[in-house]
């Protein structure tokens, strides 16, 4: 435990000094504020309180931004150590590779959680300023926060696994960007295309829901939107998605970080310093 904490505290200083924390916070804050500014317009029409509307927009934002920040933070974790030549020495210390990774994970996840908290906090503040009745949306905001942290955890771990597989920072950076495009953008697009082609058939009813929650980003979106059905419709997920129990989506969100971390540790074990 002390070894994990020792790695985590060193790593935390590194992310602070690399300005990663600052960049992540700035990204989250700017996008959250932009969303709450543009999102407040249709409030009256829908009859929802401003915070609930903001949460719906924040959910869509988080699906793109949280994985991106997590991957950018993690791609260098192992490949960078290999490149700089810092790995051999650490590996002669009485510390396990899994402990090194968990130390980095702790620091990165804390930085990510901080950025998300600042971003959502600002958006919530803006909503309260425009309507004090926004308190009704607070539980949903809290849920959005911790599911965002889970989503970030999944993508941090995926980033470590790719970093260990790539072994060079340049290659790792390419891999994570490619993965982000595939999992966040192309995945949904191809599912949509498949649904259109299937036209309400067997794929749409039996396979599609599982494919949807198999992707942590979609599971995250589903879980958060299931709670507020009005916004789920607005998000255009369609009827089929509504058949998925939120618990399944939550299970996917919880499993992904664990599975990805295990894979990352296995990949890291294969790295010769």
């Amino acid at each position: 435990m002390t070894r994990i904490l020792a790695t985590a505290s060193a790593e935390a200083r590194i992310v602070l000094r690399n300005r990663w924390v600052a960049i992540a916070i700035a990204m989250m804050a700017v996008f959250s504020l932009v969303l709450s500014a543009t999102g407040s317009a249709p409030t009256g029409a829908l009859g929802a309180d401003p915070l609930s509307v903001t949460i719906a927009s924040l959910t869509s934002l988080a699906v793109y931004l949280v994985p991106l920040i997590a991957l950018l933070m993690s791609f260098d974790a192992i490949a960078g150590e290999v490149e700089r030549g810092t790995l051999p020495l650490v590996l002669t210390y009485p510390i396990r590779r899994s402990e090194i990774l968990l130390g980095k994970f702790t620091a990165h996840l804390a930085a990510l959680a901080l950025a998300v908290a600042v971003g959502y906090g600002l958006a919530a503040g803006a909503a309260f300023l425009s309507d004090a009745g926004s308190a009704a949306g607070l539980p949903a905001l809290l849920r959005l926060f911790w599911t965002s942290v889970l989503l970030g955890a999944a993508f941090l771990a995926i980033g470590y696994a790719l970093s260990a597989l790539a072994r060079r920072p340049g290659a790792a950076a390419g891999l994570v960007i490619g993965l982000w495009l595939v999992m966040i953008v192309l995945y949904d697009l191809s599912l949509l295309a498949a649904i259109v082609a299937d036209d309400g058939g067997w794929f749409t009813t039996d396979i599609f829901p599982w494919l949807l929650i198999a992707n942590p980003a979609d599971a995250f979106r589903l879980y958060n939107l299931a709670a507020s059905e009005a916004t789920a419709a607005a998000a255009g997920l369609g009827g089929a998605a509504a058949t998925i129990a939120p618990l399944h989506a939550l299970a996917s969100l919880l499993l992904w970080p664990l599975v990805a971390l295990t894979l990352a540790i296995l990949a890291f074990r294969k790295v010769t310093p």
Partner: protein
Amino acid sequence: MTTLTLSNVTKTFGDMRALDAVGFTVAAGERVALIGHNGAGKSTLMKILLGLIQATAGDIEVCGAAPGSDAARQHVAYLPENAAFHSALTGLETLRMYLRLRGESPDQAMSLLDRVGLADAAKRRIGTYSKGMRQRVGLAQALIGHPRLLVLDEPTSGLDPVSRRDFYTMLDDLAAEGAAILLSSHALTEVEARTDRIVILSRGKLVADDTLVGLRRRAALPIRLQIRARPGEADAVAAELAGGRQNGVTVDLTCTPEDKLLRLGQIAGLGALVEDVDVVPPSLEDIYSHFSRVSADGDRQ
């Protein structure tokens, strides 16, 4: 008591034999130098006995355990060839982290940095350090705890002459406390003076493993006698001693170790013609070239 035992260690990279059946031991309190040309396999050998890479064949025992095992890592300190640290951290933060990884109190960081002369720069980022300063951070971390075996890959590279001397003094203390030390170096003169035993690797093969005295005996290289003649008598001295080069003042002779006393007797017999005489034994460099050449010849046959 042996702290490190290697026998028949072989490592191949593809069809390149980086190490070929290497075997030797390092006892507690012993300082052993590993020397050899670039690419001889010194760093590879060290990485293998630290468990960083796997040997293709052979047996290794480190402090009674397998290389890289928890028990071994507990007792072994390492200084890598090009010690690298995260440039965003300060020397103090880096040392504190390594101390905690070894389960030691991080409060010792400052005194360790002080021991390697980095106290003033402790709170600056390692990114701003000079090469020698980074090397000292590496040394400081190798001193953490009471390692039973220190594996130091070119520990003095990048250090200034005074720091080198301080470094070897530090090694003497560690060895006196019972630590076994294996270090590699290209600086043969320091190795010659400050280590107990010398292991020479040549193209992955162990070609010598002995004390300096033992190596000298085995190599049986000629000894140089430098005779300074009285002014104007150099020619006479050279003639009397039958042979040897001379440059007007000094006469140079070489002889085998067995002939040394005989020759010295002859020189003493010249009495007033000679002002002084120096006996220059073959240096480690000569011995090293001898053994490397022997092995290269052996390979060619």
